[in-house]
């Protein structure tokens, strides 16, 4: 035992570059690898496997290889009994993307001034304001949406307020795209404010002064100094809002009245009443691939910018 140890020591001393001691640091990461593997990767792999399996007659699936789930996104049997191009799923997917993009844009437009305002406050008030921004997260999402249903609903505070300005009585602002969007923006805006605030707070005030000294007006300063420097916060905020907004189910149904299906409800329908798990999984995989592509593009652009700087 001591012999081998001695030899090992000797040879290690002879060529330190060739023999490295076992790096135990990787072992320390084992728990996080296990969590990543079992809680994140495995479920995704299962969904991917289901998407290429054969559909069960009453829901469920049988292992196999079958791409029907994917072809159904574009082609289905029509009312005449012939296979035809069916744009309805593309329409639903596109509508979902547009809704998520609009939500992200509105969140951004509202979050930048709010974050800027918070960043200007004294440190104790700053802490309080950031706490207030996160406050809604302490309550369940469904309750927050219900609160909006009361605010916009018949005889709710907002229609009542508008009546003062001549709106017809008994007005309801529910069940339209605007109501959906309002609830979506409300739900996701803290996810935008926090990262944007973090990068605005780090902004060096002297750089803004320097921009003014160099005869940059406010617009130029915003565009050429403030926005580029806060871009990392804006991009991570946009990702944090856009990605979960793609899967929104509650707001479109409760606020929008569910008259136009979103991707979340479409997937739900396929696993439920539609009894078509492979198709539901195929849409989920497509959503995942789309999100990945968007994220990769953003990451590449960020990396290129960093390299340029």
């Amino acid at each position, binding site marked *: 035992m001591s012999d081998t140890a001695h030899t090992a020591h000797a040879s290690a001393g002879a060529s330190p570059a060739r023999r490295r001691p076992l790096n135990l640091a990787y072992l320390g990461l084992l728990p996080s690898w296990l969590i990543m593997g079992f809680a994140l990767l495995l479920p995704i792999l299962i969904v991917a496997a289901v998407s290429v399996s054969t559909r069960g007659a009453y*829901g469920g699936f049988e292992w196999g290889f079958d791409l029907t789930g994917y072809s159904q996104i574009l082609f289905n049997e029509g009312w*005449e009994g012939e296979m035809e191009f069916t744009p309805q799923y593309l329409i639903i997917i596109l509508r979902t993307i547009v809704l998520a993009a609009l939500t992200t844009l509105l969140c951004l437009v509202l979050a930048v001034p709010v974050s800027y305002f918070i960043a200007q406050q004294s440190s104790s008030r700053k802490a309080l304001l950031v706490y207030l921004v996160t406050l809604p997260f302490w309550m369940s999402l469904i309750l927050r949406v219900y609160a909006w249903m009361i605010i916009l609903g*018949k005889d709710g505070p907002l229609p009542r307020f508008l009546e003062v300005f001549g709106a017809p009585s008994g007005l309801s602002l*529910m069940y339209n795209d605007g109501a959906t969007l309002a609830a979506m923006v409300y739900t996701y805006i803290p996810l935008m404010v926090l990262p944007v605030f973090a990068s605005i707070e780090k902004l060096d005030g002297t750089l803004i002064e320097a921009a003014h000294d160099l005869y940059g007006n406010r617009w130029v300063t915003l565009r050429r100094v403030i926005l580029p420097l806060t871009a990392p916060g804006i991009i991570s905020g946009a990702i944090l809002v856009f990605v979960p907004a793609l899967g929104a189910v509650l707001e479109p*149904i409760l606020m929008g009245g569910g008259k136009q299906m979103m991707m979340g409800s479409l997937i739900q329908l396929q696993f*439920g*009443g539609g*009894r078509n798990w492979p198709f539901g999984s195929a849409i989920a995989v497509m959503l995942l691939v789309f999100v990945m592509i968007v994220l990769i593009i953003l990451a590449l652009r960020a990396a290129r910018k960093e390299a340029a700087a």
Partner: protein
Amino acid sequence: MKKLLTGTALAVCMTSPALAEGTLNLYVWSDSIAPDLIEKFGEEYDITVNVDGYTSNEDLLTKLQAGASGYDISAPSHHFLRIMIDEGLLENFDAKELDAFNQVDERWRNQWWDETQEYSIPMAYGTAGFAVNTAEYDGPTDSMKYFFEPGEDLSGRIALLSYPDEVIGAAQLYLGVPFCSEDSSEMKRVLDLLMAQKEHVAAYSSDNIEGRLGSGEVAAHFWWDGTMTKALRSVDNLEYAMPKEGLVGWMDSWVIPKGAPNRENAIKFIEFMSTPENATAQMNYYAHSSPLELIEADLVYTQEKAPALYPTVPVEMSRTCSPKAQDLVTRVWTQLLQ
């Protein structure tokens, strides 16, 4: 290692507040079982009862299909019960040998969804149709026409459910199309009807029906007889329509999912819930009709107080659709909401 795990498990059990003989995990319709009955059962048999809820048969079927759920009892509607038996998702607990079976009304025994009555004991039944807020709408309700082809007074003020199951059934009753039709031209007529109705519809949502209809946000809503009856406790002015075309019927039954960890406790619970005293208390809470023998004198929802539960029009029980028919239903629904 095993010892260590057992030790940890024991320690966890010891620290949990209710140190009971056994456990029973219920997966039932949300808010469907009288809480005091659950408490009474837990005390009487020294069993810790956990309750989870679902809001659609599809949710339940999906969960059971996904594999070991850990649940001991569930209550699918009859047309899903048939699928679950055929797909081997349920335990055969020889239900017909239980005392509970003798409490079941003759007309609900050995139906097509469980002919041999080995897998299920009926627990509640009812209908699906539409209800109106009489403060907002005082027109006629004796036909589905007013709901599916609304006039001026209901335009923009009706709401349906967020999933197709019973809505399509009601539309089929109205058009005279058989349930689970495999004829695509018939189902196209169903789609055309719902498409024409859509411009008058405020929402397709199964959540918060009571609030939406009770507040007058909408004036007519697709609903269930008992749920509406229960809502009358806090909202006035609700009336369940009795359309001449008929209502869509359903029957929920207790079942034991395959591989249930506490099968014996599940049987105890089914027996417990089926005694006349407890069945009456359950109906007084749930407000859906009971297929069991009741103590009439203690019944809250009598014909006089709850006319919705005593339909005066034909009731057509939902069927178990073939995959082909179900695909047509899904196609109608997707095109309606595309």
